[in-house]
């Protein structure tokens, strides 16, 4: 317990020293980098994963391929992929972003697909029965009912992206992982633990954002049923 307090004091000291808050390589710059990498790749992954997932879920075609992709994607060591991309393409942001997108698509794709697939066929038929077009069935019936799982997929992808953006500091990218990697190579534990604390806080904020999203956009009638991982 004392150790924990010491760690917290270390984090506090590091955060309090004003040099961390200014200029090149300061906390604001690193945080902005981290948010840019994560936000951009999540955005692109969502565009790809959502549209494919909705398409496959609605039509039922390609379901087998989706399950295969999801399984394969979980097996990819993200750290290895990012390092490989930097080794092959050199140290620039775009190739790493492409890798982050590739890693974030599968969880969004599979959960969107399962969400839409899991809609009760009777509900789908009822939607058609009241005269909805296929597009309306998708947008007004299937998507709202699939929202809990769609949000889960986005949340898992966000966790993945924030974590991988952290290890991307190892082959030389910016972001909050920079503090951890630099601290490790300089044997500066204060820097390591300060950087880790920032990463933890960012991860928690992401969780809170998703919890809030779920409360605001998921229909109240569906909230109790979400437990699938």
């Amino acid at each position, binding site marked *: 317990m004392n150790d924990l307090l010491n760690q917290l004091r270390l984090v506090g000291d590091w955060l309090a020293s004003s040099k961390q808050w200014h200029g090149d390589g300061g906390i604001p710059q690193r945080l902005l980098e981290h948010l840019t990498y994560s936000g951009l790749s999540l955005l692109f992954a969502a565009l790809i994963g959502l549209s494919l997932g909705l398409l496959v879920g609605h039509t039922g075609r390609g379901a087998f391929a989706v399950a295969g992709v999801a399984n394969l994607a*979980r097996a990819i060591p993200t750290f*290895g992929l990012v390092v*490989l991309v930097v*080794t092959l393409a050199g140290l620039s942001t775009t190739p790493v972003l492409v890798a982050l997108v590739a890693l974030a698509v599968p969880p969004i794709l599979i959960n969107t697909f399962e969400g839409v697939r899991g809609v009760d066929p009777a509900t789908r038929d009822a939607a058609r029965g009241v005269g909805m077009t296929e597009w309306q069935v998708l947008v007004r019936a299937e998507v709202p009912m699939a929202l809990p799982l769609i949000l889960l997929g986005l949340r898992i992808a966000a966790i993945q992206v924030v974590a991988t953006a952290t290890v991307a500091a190892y082959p030389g990218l910016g972001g909050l992982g920079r503090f951890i990697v630099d601290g490790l190579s300089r044997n500066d534990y204060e820097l390591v633990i300060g950087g880790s604390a920032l990463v933890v806080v960012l991860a928690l904020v992401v969780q809170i954002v998703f919890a809030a999203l779920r409360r605001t956009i998921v229909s109240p009638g569906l909230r109790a049923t979400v437990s699938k*991982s």
Partner: protein
Amino acid sequence: MSDGEPLVRWQWIGDHAGELADYTGIHLRLGLLPVLFGLIISVPLGILCHRRRWLYGPVLTVANILYSIPSLALFMIFVKYTGLTERTVMIPLTLYTLSVLVPNVVDGLASVPEPVRQAATALGFGPIRRVVQVELPIAVPIVIAGVRVAAVSSISLVAVGQLIGQGGLGYYITRGLQLDFPTPIVTAIVLIMLLALTTDALLVLAQRLLTPWSRSKVTAS
């Protein structure tokens, strides 16, 4: 990387076969022991959450929060206590498995039909014997579906441990970057994926052997 360097130099793989096998063994240990520990924690915890429903929400929230913390940061927090040892990698990986294993144990127990539970009680099974001999076997397919997800993720995450010197095959990932030489990196990625997918296939097989009655309906999540 210098121009003309191929993605894979087969010669290198041949020269390092023995060493690669050693690191593969370490990698499996670092990846799979946490799943075992996770299961040892999750089964009793899941049973408890199944019995005392109010516990489930808070337990799941804590497990999900732990899962959301990036591995690199979590490793660093444990370095202070367990040093640059294998434990520093295995403790966070164990914590990560809880977010899949606990819900799957709870869902598995919830999948036991009420008449089965009542029949077991009527046959004189006490609460503990009923859980061990009746409810858990019925929960096996759902629990194993969770173990598959946990094992595959755990094996692929081990590599990050290389940043504290304990990454199994992750050793070749950092080595390849230092040497600006892609072969070790590609080899490590392929081997890690093979380990993960083989483990996954073996778990499917184990489930079929453990639950001969449910061969027709294998569930995977």
